[in-house]
């Protein structure tokens, strides 16, 4: 039984934590929060690019570090802890993984080295309106190698240089790669619940697009991409949830009411114990997802879904009860609690809400236990 990260991976985690605690402070997160003109913290982003983390799971032949998925999971958790206000997930979890999964040799050669060195920032554009995206409810269409339509919201869509876009292709759907710096593309920022991660509305008007994978295979491919990204997002969520528990715990020990620390009251102690239990359940499920992801296991669909469901629940609970534990202080702009509450919601609905993942999970269990 070796259900844990290796010593090397733990070393990477410790180094990443030290680096981010110094280079990606809450003050730096707030520079993006308090300035509508800022889509991300460019100083932090450049330093992360220099660390080579974007290429952690990109093979060396494509300009990456060639470490592996477990290493990327470790980095994701640390980015989640610090609420890194950068387009890392869009580029590394979605764009790069999609290319690794379905890109042609030419596409991989052209784009992966640039993702790794930060000169390409990728994102994924799926949603067009409220509710779960399905082949039947997308209007953006592919015709004669060009796409037309509107995607809203696209996480990191205003910083990205490239997007993978889900489009209607005849009676089914396809995924295409689009260079966002071309005349057929207009972008505009849109306000969201999570200002430290920017979002855009992207309109395409005959923009030239390059097919990713087989034509008409868009939905199954998107499922595969999301399964991979789900595990990485779960680690970010876990990092955020862990920080919420640490913040609530520290405050409960320090804040005095009725003559003693509020953390001496069972109502607070049990709330924090509940947080701990949910976080541990999320951690165990995330590790299983990491194992499935790194070993190309057949169990990946249910492992990814369970990781995602557990992590979304843990971060939701920890972020809302962290505010509650802080009382009135927790509801001020200056105290960081609301930043985690905001990030928790973004990460819970990006790439499918918990309800979507629960259904994926049950479908996978159903297929397996028929």
């Amino acid at each position, binding site marked *: *039984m*070796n*259900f*844990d*990260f*290796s010593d090397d991976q733990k070393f990477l985690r410790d180094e990443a934590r030290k680096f981010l605690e110094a280079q990606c402070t809450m003050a730096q997160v707030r520079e993006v929060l308090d300035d509508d003109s800022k889509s991300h913290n460019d100083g932090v982003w450049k330093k992360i690019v220099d660390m080579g983390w974007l290429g952690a799971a990109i093979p060396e032949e494509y300009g990456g570090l060639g470490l592996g998925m*477990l290493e990327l999971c470790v980095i994701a958790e640390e980015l989640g802890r610090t609420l890194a206000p950068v387009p890392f997930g869009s580029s590394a979890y979605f764009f790069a993984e999609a290319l690794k999964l379905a890109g042609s040799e030419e596409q991989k050669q052209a784009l992966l080295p640039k993702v790794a060195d930060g000169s390409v920032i990728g994102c994924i554009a799926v949603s067009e309106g409220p509710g779960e995206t399905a082949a039947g409810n997308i209007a953006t269409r592919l015709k004669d190698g060009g796409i037309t339509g509107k995607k809203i919201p696209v996480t990191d869509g205003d910083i990205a240089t490239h997007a993978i876009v889900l489009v209607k292709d005849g009676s089914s759907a396809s995924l295409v790669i689009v260079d966002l710096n071309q005349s057929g593309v207009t972008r505009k920022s849109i306000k969201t619940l999570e200002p430290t991660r920017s979002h855009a509305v992207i309109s395409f008007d005959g923009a030239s697009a390059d097919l990713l994978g087989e034509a008409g295979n868009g939905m199954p491919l998107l499922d595969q991409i999301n399964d991979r990204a789900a595990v990485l997002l779960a680690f970010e969520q876990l990092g955020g949830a862990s920080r919420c*528990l640490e913040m609530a*715990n520290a405050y*409960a*020990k320090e804040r005095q009411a009725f003559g*003693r*620390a509020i*953390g*001496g009251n*069972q109502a*607070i*102690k*049990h709330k*924090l*114990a*509940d947080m*701990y*239990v949910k976080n*541990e*359940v*999320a951690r*165990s*499920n995330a*590790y*299983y997802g*990491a*194992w499935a992801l*790194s*070993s190309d296991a057949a169990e990946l669909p*249910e492992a990814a*879904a*369970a990781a995602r*469901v*557990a992590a979304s*629940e843990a971060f939701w609970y920890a972020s809302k009860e962290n505010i509650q534990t802080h009382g009135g202080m927790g509801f001020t702009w200056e105290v960081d609690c609301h930043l985690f509450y905001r990030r928790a919601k973004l990460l819970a609905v990006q790439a499918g809400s918990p*309800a979507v*993942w*629960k*259904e994926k*999970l*049950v479908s996978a*269990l*159903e297929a397996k*236990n028929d």
Partner: protein
Amino acid sequence: MDFNDTPEEAEFRAEAQAFLSQHLKPKTPGALRSGGREDFLARAKAWQKIKAEGGFAQITWPKEMGGRGGTVMQQVIWGQEEAKFDAPTGPFAIGLGMCVPTVIAFGSDEHKKKYVRKALMGEDVWCQLFSEPAAGSDVAGLKTKAVKDGDEWVINGQKVWTSGAHYSDYGILLVRTDPNVPKHKGLTMFIVDMKQPGVDVRPIHQASGGSEFNEVYFTDVRIPDADRLGEPGMGWKVALVTLMNERLAVGGSPGPDWKEIMDYARSAGTLSNQAFRDKLADWYVAAQGYKLTKFRTQTALSRGETPGPENAIGKIINANHLQDICNSAIEMQDHFGIIVDKDEAPSDAIFQESFMWAPGLRIAGGTDEILKNIIAERVLGLPQDVRVDKDKTFAEMN
């Protein structure tokens, strides 16, 4: 990251499997707690003897005590494999897991000679007499008293929730020997012969209908001073050693889990119900959370590390999970769900049976609330609860 045994662990597992399949039948799928059967105790004693003779009883005990001198990881592996067979182990879990290790730690050479081997060979069964009607979570507040009379102590009082007292030969008994000091400091531990006059064992009629636990009344029971474990007044420290020896939970789920309720829903045609599917996902995540957290604990054990109080999360998850699944299964059966008659109730009434067992599981061995306190205080480092009796003597408070 993998789920494989080390070569040494794999070798031990194969050895354990070979031994088990030589002596036992594999467990019937879906079979639950197998207590209650009339020949249960005789079968348990026979199996304990076979295990001891084969070198698989008390794997972590030193060889001179009749153990295997093995590792905690081997104990875990043995537990996993034994759980796959129809092994009657219940009556010895508390005695060999908690009571006899206390005798080994605090008893005299005479005690060790007299008790250890017989317990190991399945000849004697032991029980643990700590809880009282007015001392459950706060067990140090117990009232059963012992008064010194020459070379003997005279015991009067009542214990409760004693598993297996009705078939036990001996027990370890925690009593108050000095009421004029704070509660933790006036306790003393004894070995007690359960078959002697003045010991009255009465089964508790549980809310579930069964009777697995007992009340034990002590009326002028005399215990020789030689059967004291530890110094007078040191009983709480002795008890902590007993509780520390509580076996690592290695068993699987205590009743129906996500798979059983999913199978039932499929047979009943309700698997497509959206509200049900939503819950099923949560149950799977919780069950995996429990199972995989144990894998993390085993990884730590396999590396020779000692797991800490974070283990408390297992029972919190498990007990509530079981109660929730059973409740939903019954409601899914609508009015019919009220039936416990096994000939009529779906799935041999496993959901109904565990529905009535689950409330006990949330209390036994540490209530949800006490376990959350343990996590809050020992893992998260939050302040202890207010203890108004902390600096007062037991007599002042009672």
